[in-house]
């Protein structure tokens, strides 16, 4: 059975001989939201770059919406899969926010009207509509990251990969980001987020994949993942603060967020 996005027994070895992934399989459906967690060097970003065709597998196949990425160029695949880099400065190269966001749609040979529409909708979604005339380099890093997010959204890909989207974001940035993910998923887009921010995972993703030592070591319900001590230990990942607290108090398993915690405290009362 083939999924909308699948990695089938993928291995990836960099040209210098460094092996980054070994026999990894992932299946992700249309309209799904998935978090990928794990330490640096575990293979998260390599996996993401296989999904958008920046990397082609050494062995195995990557399928996107019926395409085998080996048979298409990165430019062709980028119409289907958009990747927002961890560091926005690896991505930005225009001196006007509007031009930066319009670059992708222009390359897709969309009409002037469509380009303008896509740019405005994307800017609206990430709440930078007032900044379209600014120079991206005059904006703080946290906002530059939203510029690059809009650039990818404006190309209207079916899959969007966000690499460390919460880094350096304040409360409003985090809220905007959660809202962007909700809207994308409502539009039947697939959103894959690579992150170290476990609170963000707990409140925005039901499905989490854990990567460690070039492998996917777990894939499932976020609640179960964050209470699977063996997996977390193997991956070198700590659960969200509230899960850690619940654990040290000996509360029931599966607590991730403040609301879960309070529900459980209420039950303890009755019990």
């Amino acid at each position, binding site marked *: 059975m083939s999924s909308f996005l699948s990695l089938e027994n993928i291995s990836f070895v960099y040209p210098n001989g460094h092996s980054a992934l070994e026999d990894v399989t992932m299946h992700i459906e249309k309209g799904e939201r998935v978090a990928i967690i794990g*330490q640096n060097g575990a293979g998260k970003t390599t996996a993401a770059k296989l999904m958008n065709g920046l990397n082609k597998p050494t062995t195995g196949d990557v399928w996107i919406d019926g395409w085998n990425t080996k048979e298409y160029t990165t430019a062709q695949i980028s119409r289907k899969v958009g990747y927002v880099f961890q560091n926005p400065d690896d991505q930005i190269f225009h001196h006007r926010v509007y031009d930066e966001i319009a670059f992708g749609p222009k390359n897709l040979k969309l009409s002037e009207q469509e380009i303008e529409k896509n740019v405005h909708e994307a800017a609206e979604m990430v709440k930078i509509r007032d900044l379209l005339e600014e120079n991206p380099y005059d904006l703080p890093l946290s906002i530059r990251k939203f510029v690059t997010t809009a650039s990818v959204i404006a190309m209207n890909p079916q899959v969007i990969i966000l690499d460390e989207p919460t880094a350096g974001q*304040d*409360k409003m940035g985090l809220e905007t980001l959660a809202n962007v993910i909700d809207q994308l998923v409502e539009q039947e887009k697939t959103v894959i987020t690579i992150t170290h921010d476990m609170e963000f995972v707990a409140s925005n993703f039901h499905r989490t994949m854990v990567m460690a030592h070039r492998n996917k070591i777990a894939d499932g319900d976020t609640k179960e993942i964050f209470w699977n001590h063996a997996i977390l230990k193997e991956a070198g*990942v700590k659960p969200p603060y509230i899960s850690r*607290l619940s654990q040290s108090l000996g509360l029931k398993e599966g607590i991730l967020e*403040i609301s879960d915690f309070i529900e459980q405290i209420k039950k303890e009362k009755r019990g």
Partner: protein
Amino acid sequence: MEPIIEIRNLTYRYPTADKNIFTNLSLTIHRGELCSIIGPNGAGKTTLCNVIRGFIPHFYKGDFQGNVTIDGKNTKDLTIGELALKIGFVFQNPFTQISGVADTVFEEVSFGLENMGVEASKIRERVEEVLALTKIESLRDRNPFELSGGQLQRVALASIIVMEPEILVIDEPTSQLDPEGTEEVFEIIKQMKEKKKTIVLVEHKMELIAEYSDHIVLIDDGKIVLEGSCEEVLTNEQVLKHGTLLPQFAMLGLEMNKQGMRLGRIPVTEKQARDEITAFLEYRRRVTDV
């Protein structure tokens, strides 16, 4: 405690800006304290760091009124060089800070002392000491540009610490690091605190701020809107209205209170949360048993 950084009635406007970023801002930071500056992005946190280290008004011109003194000396009257000896500044992005002229981590960490004209044998001694303190001995012969972000941030911290400034200004040191890298950076900050350095820290990770800070300053739109100890500021719901998060433990305590489950106090750290909730559960058990 004796004041070390004093800002009095500071009004500042960037050269091309059409309004002031600060108007009549005053702040006192005491010797040996860890003062965290929190607030939404764009509030003026980095500008305040630049005021403290004298980069404003020495490098950024603009309209500057009021007085900023470090150890009683006005920053206007000190040179950038004199200020740099007193105040070490660690950049948000270590790639911006790394000199680019050193082939190894050892040379990079030596760079500041060489510029200060410290004798070679003394440099070696101090660099060795700091490499050990920041746990980067194993990286000594590596090229700084081949390190991971977390490793490079530790090199950046070591390069500043080695000059033994009395004050450290650290602007969002962990925003681009993974949890392990973040912990390593905070381990170094903790050691600097034990050495009684005065530390000014800008950081978004509120649970870590709650763990280490003595003094919290919340700024929003260029104004200090709340100031005090962790317990005073980080339990105050007003912080949320200023676009800033509270530690998860405080959010939990506030929510429990709202739902009629009163804790002795609103916790800000994991340990406080564990103690308060344990006491709460025990109390309730006793009440139910009777």
